[in-house]
């Protein structure tokens, strides 16, 4: 079995994986980082979005071995202890989540959007979220939260 070594949320980890293991399964099962969710089997829903080397990636579309040597950030690595990342705080403030299942992927996508586009318009946000499905919120508050989170991230 191949071995992978990577940095996850600032910590070096390594382990043996079956060649077919997806990054999402490695995170959830080997590292017990269950904040990254699996919502589909066709790479459509975005519940599994993490950052690999700073860019948002659907961790269900990447093999664990492809992440060898990479820096991975999951939702668990975003907050600073009890202090939420500004984007997380904005989701709370604007009620951008209900059941919370899509939320980790949404937040990780949102942070990547703002890194590329510091002041996204409503249209920008809606287009960027093409790959993330939320069944609960109707997106109205997610859009508000992301725009507010973008403002807060500037500070």
């Amino acid at each position, binding site marked *: 079995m191949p071995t992978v070594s990577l940095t996850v949320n600032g910590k070096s980890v390594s382990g043996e994986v079956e060649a077919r293991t997806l990054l999402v399964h490695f995170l959830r099962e080997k590292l017990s980082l*269950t904040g990254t*969710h*699996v919502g589909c089997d066709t790479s459509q829903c975005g519940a599994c979005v993490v950052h690999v080397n700073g860019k948002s990636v659907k961790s269900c579309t990447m093999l664990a071995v492809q992440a060898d040597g990479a820096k991975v950030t999951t939702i668990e690595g975003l907050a600073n202890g009890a202090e939420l990342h500004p984007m997380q705080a904005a989701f*709370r403030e604007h009620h951008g*989540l*209900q*059941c919370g299942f899509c939320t980790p992927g949404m937040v990780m996508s949102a942070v990547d959007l703002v890194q590329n586009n510091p002041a996204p318009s409503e*249209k920008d946000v809606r287009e960027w979220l*093409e790959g993330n499905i939320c069944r609960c919120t109707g997106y*109205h508050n997610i859009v508000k939260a992301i725009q507010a989170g973008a403002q807060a991230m500037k500070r």
Partner: protein
Amino acid sequence: MADTGIGASVKRKEDFRFLTGQGHYTDDINKHGQTYAYFLRSPHAHAKIRKVDTAAAAKMPGVVAVFTGADVAADKVGGLICGWTVTDRFGKPHKAPPHPILANEKVRYVGDHVAVVIAESIAQAKDAAEAIEVDYEELPAVVDTATAMDPKAAQLHADVPNNLCYDWELGDKAAVDAAFAKAAKVSKLDLVNNRLIPNAMEPRAAIGEYDAGTDSYTCYSTSQNPHVLRLILCAFIMGVPEHKMRVIAPDVGGGFGSKIFCYAEEVVCTWAAKKVKRPVKWTAERGESFVSDAHGRDHVSHVEMAMDKDGKFLAMKVDTIASMGAYLSTFATCVPTYLYATLLAGQYTAPAIYCNVKAVFTTTAPVDAYRGAGRPEATYVVERIVENCARDMKLDPAEIRRRNFIKPDAFPYQTPVALQYDSGNYEKALDEALKLADYKGYPARKAEAAKRGKLRGIGFSAYIEACGIAPSAVVGSLGAGVGLWESAQIRFNPTGTAQVLTGSHSHGQGHETTLAQVVADKLGLSVDAVTVVHGDTSQVPFGMGTYGSRSLAVGGSAAVKAIDKIVAKGKKIAAHLLEASVDDIQYSKGVFKVAGTDRQKTIQEIAFAAYVPHNYPKDLEPGLDETAFYDPANFTYPAGVHIAEVEIDPDTGVTTIANWSAVDDFGNVINPMVVEGQVHGGIAQGVGQALLEGCVYDKETGQLLTGSYMDYCMPRADDLPSFKIGTISTPCPHNPLGVKGCGEAGAIAAPAALVNAITDALGVRDIPMPASPERVWRVAQGAKMAAE
């Protein structure tokens, strides 16, 4: 307290854990030594099973056990049940064919459970499932709801002729016929309410555990309804007493009805845990969710409305055929009957209504309650025909509604279809919605759009729903197998914090916050001093779960009743401590006071005295912990008006929602932020139904053609606008909080509003849902060609 009490938009307590990835959904839980279950599912819509050979699979690496229908039958495990008996119009109970948890002789839909492999890893279980050999004798499929009763159609169940589950009616047919005979005008429509797949983002999952030392089971499940799941598992399927079964439904990632029911997978995992002496875990893949979660809607209807010369409604008649799918799911039978036909009065005064419903079996996944359950179907029928009445009478759609609304002074209002509406003010909601939508400015916007070559349309939906399910005696008389009260327990701690244990279940609705708000407000505590506990049958006294917007109206009312008991006991303690008579103690928001004096004790002091009863009334029990069961006196009746304004590009068929304005009446509101969020989500699901979502089975083969997110079009962020939301309030007169429920409103209102808008824009009477760009384009081109 004003900033966190009842009526305040308190930020949610549950959000921190969800936002930091610390939620505990069922698939996040792992048990020491667990095994993994994988279900072999039928590839055919309908087939006889001649033989299942599991010998090769059992020898595959990592396989712990393989079970088939024969193993289940040998162990006397019962089938899934339907918990509601509908009596047909001839006085007979509906047909209830057996629903085995693993098929034994026949499979009846693609995805039906044939066998289960339990292995050390899910990959090994899947590999082994491929080695199971099943000898099928294929039979013809029947997927079409409208023609399922055709005598030539394939028959699904031995004792169900013509696939007819029941033929049921409600209302006064003679009165309706008489009214039609003297009508000035009759409007007619044929409607299809498209079948939907609920698609909560968290797929269903279950973990079964068995403890030989105590001979007891634990089932972790993605359930909206843990106590009822326990009841069904124990009393009807496994023959295990309830005190030997614990059901835990931890964080659940959305339900929308699809997680109310008892499914084969949770039964099999729980049963198999004892057989293999290890925990058994199953998590659905999305593809499995598509084929095996209970689907929603799927009605075919014909509706007629009789009017006088002024457009006053005289009578309505409706014929509906409703699909049940291949087997009856837990509440399937009541959805197209008591949750549907009883709402056909809408917000209007038609004095006579008659509805006939025929429920049919088809070779498709079972159909059951989905967000709104019966009420979206009813609203679709009513609001589409009302719109067509307006067009036939050449009346403004707002005006025809206004002429026929039940007036604010007519409540309580007895409809001709069984229900008695509690309170409402339909005209006011309409007026507010017209303002919000800038209805006056609409003609100018339409003209401006036309200059750009776009078709603009506007559509109304004045919906009503019956929520807060439901008075036990009423549902019992209608065939329900359970009472629909709710329980709550309030446990005070010695240092003045409290826990609320509720039998309702939160899967996104925010109960941890709203219920805490109610209790904190009434007990004079901070919201942070109250924790809500739910979803565990070993902690919560009992419960009926969350669906039908019942959590606050019924569950919250139970909490208020428990608070009343706490206050009554607290008064006795306070009277003793303050050396006054109990009758002189007044209570308000956490403070017990001797009337007319400044002598008082806070509830925290009372709680402390109850647990440290050094100075305490002689005959009173220590402790401050009260339980209440609340059975509602009636349903609650939220209502409102949604107005959709659309713009259609005739060259592409794409419909853009230009404006969405909604004014809802939910009675009193505990947390406006949470309520708005519920409305947004509901509208999105309704928009999904009207524009994008449709479950399609191949008519010949019965294969599910929309079996993944590549084929089933889920609403995404750029399919939706931001919404304009307003509320009015006519408090519910019969529950102590005055609340009515808000969870389903958007999904109920939206489809009719949107299709009314699209047909208005296109100048046609109907377009089938989902009104996809292709369908809209065809109509737009047809209309254009006709005009040229």
